[in-house]
């Protein structure tokens, strides 16, 4: 990568695996789980967070020298809230159905701990370009988990991906359904999101044993 120095590239790649915001730092789970029953909603949520975190990190980083440290939380919240309102209005204008599915969870991006966490831990102490890279890296790390969970839940739960019937038609009994496969409707219920994330954590930590926690 000619454009990025090694240190900058690490900002982008670290959060994807070994420092993933969801599975390692345990941030931003709140909004992540409720909307992953469909792959489409997960992708939209991931893109929204990418926008808010990338831009928010830059804004906070530009203002880092003029924010009084006592009221920084409120300043940060206002910056995020403004960005989230933009996302919300754009969604309502161009994808109304989807914004109904996401309901209050778009608004809850404001209190998504990843965003506050990155502002506090990174944007307040670094320049705009590095803060931007850090924001993008973390948002992608978050999005990857979201999309993985959404993928499995939609595939196993309703046998579709982005609405396409990839496993055949359950009514016409084609594809897998012809040999007696049934959709697991339980995957669509909210508790399964937690269990799927638990299993993802399990897989990740068995592959990289240095991440294992001491109780």
């Amino acid at each position, binding site marked *: 990568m000619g454009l990025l120095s090694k240190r900058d590239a690490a900002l982008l790649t670290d959060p994807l695996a070994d420092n993933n915001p969801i599975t390692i730092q*345990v941030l931003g789970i*709140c909004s992540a789980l409720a909307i992953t029953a469909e792959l489409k909603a997960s992708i939209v949520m991931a893109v929204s967070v990418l926008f808010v975190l990338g831009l928010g990190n830059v804004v906070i980083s530009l203002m880092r020298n003029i924010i009084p440290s006592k009221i920084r939380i409120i300043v940060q919240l206002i910056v995020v809230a403004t960005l989230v309102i933009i996302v919300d209005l754009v969604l309502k204008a161009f994808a109304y159905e989807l914004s109904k599915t996401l309901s209050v969870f778009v*608004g809850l991006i404001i209190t998504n701990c990843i965003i506050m966490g990155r502002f506090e831990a990174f944007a307040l102490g670094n320049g705009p370009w590095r803060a931007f890279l850090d924001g993008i890296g973390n948002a992608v790390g978050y999005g990857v988990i979201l999309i993985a969970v959404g993928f499995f839940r939609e595939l196993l739960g309703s046998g579709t991906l982005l609405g396409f019937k990839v496993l055949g038609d359950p009514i*016409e009994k084609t594809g897998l359904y012809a040999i007696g496969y049934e959709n697991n409707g339980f995957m669509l219920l909210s508790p399964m999101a937690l269990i799927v994330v638990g299993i993802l954590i399990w897989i990740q930590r068995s592959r990289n044993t240095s991440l294992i926690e001491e109780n």
Partner: protein
Amino acid sequence: MEHIELFFKSIFIDNMVFATFLGMCSYLAVSKKVATAVGLGAAVIFVLAVTVPLNWLLDQYILKDGALVWLGPEYADYDLSFLSFIMFIATIATMVQLVEIIVEKFSPSLYNSLGIFLPLIAVNCAILGGSLFMQSREIPSLGLALTYGVGSGIGWFLAILAIAAIREKIRYSSVPPALRGLGITFIITGLMAIGFMSFGGMLTGGDEEAKPAAAPEVVIEKVQEKVEKEVIAKNTKRIQ
């Protein structure tokens, strides 16, 4: 009666943690010991009980479509609801600061037990979520908003208390190494959520009345539609 109904509904059926996953971050981070979990839980009840009614007033008299009509008839077409995120979060952040100052002044002992958690709470999704759900479920009166706030707070309190107790015990069991800590907590929470789903029939007596909640229900409805279509398709085939 409707107060009692909403109260139990917000504790069990629409439990913040198990039904809508709100406040998961602090739920996972602060649930290692029962004592700290109780402190944070109490602070959440307290702040929800203050902010939900306050935001209800804001929503009703400033933000809603046509809410400004009390200023005069020419304000009747104003719809400021796009500002609700920023107003709600500002209210919450200031209220948390205010509560912190007041508690510190009047009850130092309470401050010592609650105080460290209060700043954490401003960014707890459960608090903002409480206000946003209050808005989207169109809670009709100030009293009900208070009931809703207290009820969801107690629901969150119960959840964090339960998981903290389980995590204290689980330290003595042999969990597979890769699942230790976070992984097993997720899975336990999932199992608890399945348990809490059984409260769904508590108020409706087992009726399949659709709950006005978030995304999962929408999907379930879709699935039900699909199943119905399937049945119809089968029957028509048979007739043919």
